[in-house]
């Protein structure tokens, strides 16, 4: 059975990769792997944030919820109820391990399910932490100082791949094959941090200043900054992607003798003022939020480009194809659906892509809004066709069917959960 490595890049947009058409050479290693393997040009993440997106990617089932994702019970139940790809591979005899510094995909949320080894760097025995906790009463000051400390020490949310790549290699070398390894790279997640030797488009000053600047913008609507400043923020993001790409080069170099098959993807995208927002704090399902790179590369993977839309909910079944010694069984469907629920504002979101047409539905206490775009001529999703004379019967049908499925699942789950009280 093949060794399999799943590499997740946080906040990585497809249109910022070389093979995705970006003008900068941000992903030379990934591009090379894409050339030799199978590229999914129109891969959509299941959601616009790590927690619901990865819960869907690891199980193959969309996480349906109407609450805040910060509640660990939601992802925890979802992962346990549907079972993860790690559990399925473990049942087949795989040894499973993960290195995941994103707290939203940590054991606290049940993401260790099925992993023999799960390093989420959640605990720090750092004496500084106790010192700060005792002596600082202002929590925002504490968080700021902690962030500065963590940035300098490359810890916690700022844990860059170079600080744990040795551990990854050690785990692989001391593990029984076949293995399934999940590596989650925070390197492409805000703040965009890149060691000096890997920076190409930004200086050290740019990195500190524009991360600080971006931090002021995250959580803001209708941001109005100069194009120059916006570009500087994009520059530090692009450098972080280049650095993240280097992780792939290191993995290939260190682990080549194990001949793994790589599944490489982004967990969701990132906004850079397409609609007055930065980051991914505000759930939305536009292309900048959900169009992610997805490449499969390995000794038995065909050189192929899949041009139909697909959802990363299909990732587990593709992994199983490789685990079972089969070719990738790629669906012939051209439909991909992404969903999310904004618990803070009670907004339920569904985005349905069928071919090059896309419908975005938003339900909230203030009403329902529909947007329809033709991505073939309007990739930036600016010309809403909902009031045009064109019929989008198929999109409507797919969307309403999915919405009813969500409602049905929630009703079933809430009815059944009452059984616990009997």
């Amino acid at each position: 059975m093949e060794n399999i490595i799943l590499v997740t890049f946080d906040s990585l947009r497809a249109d910022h990769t070389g093979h995705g058409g970006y003008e900068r050479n941000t992903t030379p290693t990934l591009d090379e792997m894409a050339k030799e393997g199978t590229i999914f040009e129109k891969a959509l993440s299941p959601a616009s944030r790590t927690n619901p997106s990865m819960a869907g990617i690891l199980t193959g089932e969309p996480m349906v919820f109407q609450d805040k994702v910060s509640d660990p019970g939601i992802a925890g139940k979802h992962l346990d109820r549907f079972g993860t790809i790690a559990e399925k591979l473990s049942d087949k005899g795989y040894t499973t391990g993960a290195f995941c510094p994103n707290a939203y995909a940590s054991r606290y949320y049940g993401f260790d399910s099925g992993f023999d080894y799960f390093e989420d760097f959640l605990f720090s025995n750092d004496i500084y932490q106790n010192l700060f906790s005792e002596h600082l009463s202002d929590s925002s000051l504490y968080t700021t100082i902690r962030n500065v400390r963590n940035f300098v020490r490359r810890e916690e949310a700022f844990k860059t791949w170079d600080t744990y790549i040795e551990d990854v290699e050690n785990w692989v070398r001391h593990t029984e094959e076949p293995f399934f390894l999940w590596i989650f790279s925070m390197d492409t997640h805000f703040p965009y941090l890149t060691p000096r030797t890997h920076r190409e488009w930004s200086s050290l000053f740019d990195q500190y200043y524009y991360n600080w600047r971006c931090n002021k913008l995250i959580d803001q609507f209708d941001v109005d900054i100069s194009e120059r400043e916006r570009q500087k923020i994009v520059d530090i993001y692009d450098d972080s992607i280049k650095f993240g790409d280097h992780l792939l080069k290191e993995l290939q170099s260190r682990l080549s003798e194990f001949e793994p098959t790589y599944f490489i993807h982004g967990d969701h995208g990132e906004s850079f003022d397409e609609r007055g927002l930065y980051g991914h704090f505000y759930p939305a399902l536009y292309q900048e939020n959900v169009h992610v790179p997805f490449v499969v590369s390995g000794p038995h993977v065909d050189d192929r480009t899949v041009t139909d839309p697909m959802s990363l909910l299909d990732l587990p079944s593709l992994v199983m194809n490789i685990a079972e010694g089969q070719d990738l069984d790629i669906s012939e469907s051209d439909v991909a659906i992404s969903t999310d629920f904004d618990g803070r504002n009670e907004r339920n979101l569904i985005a349905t892509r069928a071919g090059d047409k896309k419908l975005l539905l938003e339900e909230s206490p203030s009403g329902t809004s529909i947007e329809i775009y033709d991505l073939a001529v309007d990739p930036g999703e600016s010309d809403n066709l909902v009031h045009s004379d064109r019929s989008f019967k198929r999109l409507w049908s797919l969307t309403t069917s999915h919405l009813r499925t969500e409602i049905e699942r929630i009703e079933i789950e809430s009815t059944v959960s009452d059984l616990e009280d009997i």
Partner: protein
Amino acid sequence: MSERDRDPSQSVALSEDLISRVESRVEQTDFDSVTDYITYVLEEVLYQVEGEESDDSSGDVNEDEVQERLKSLGYLNE
């Protein structure tokens, strides 16, 4: 859903009335078939009733610690 297709199965007899009620719900949703829907409901029931939980390692995590980590991701969106 395709995983389910691979599991060995047995037939179960259900009343036509019950099947009909399920059919009318299935046709408005993404469930592929009556079998799919009924299997989903039963799995949900059994999951709750059996109280199946994997090793709950979230119990050994300090919640305050996690909240701080989430904040240090640049936002705590919810």
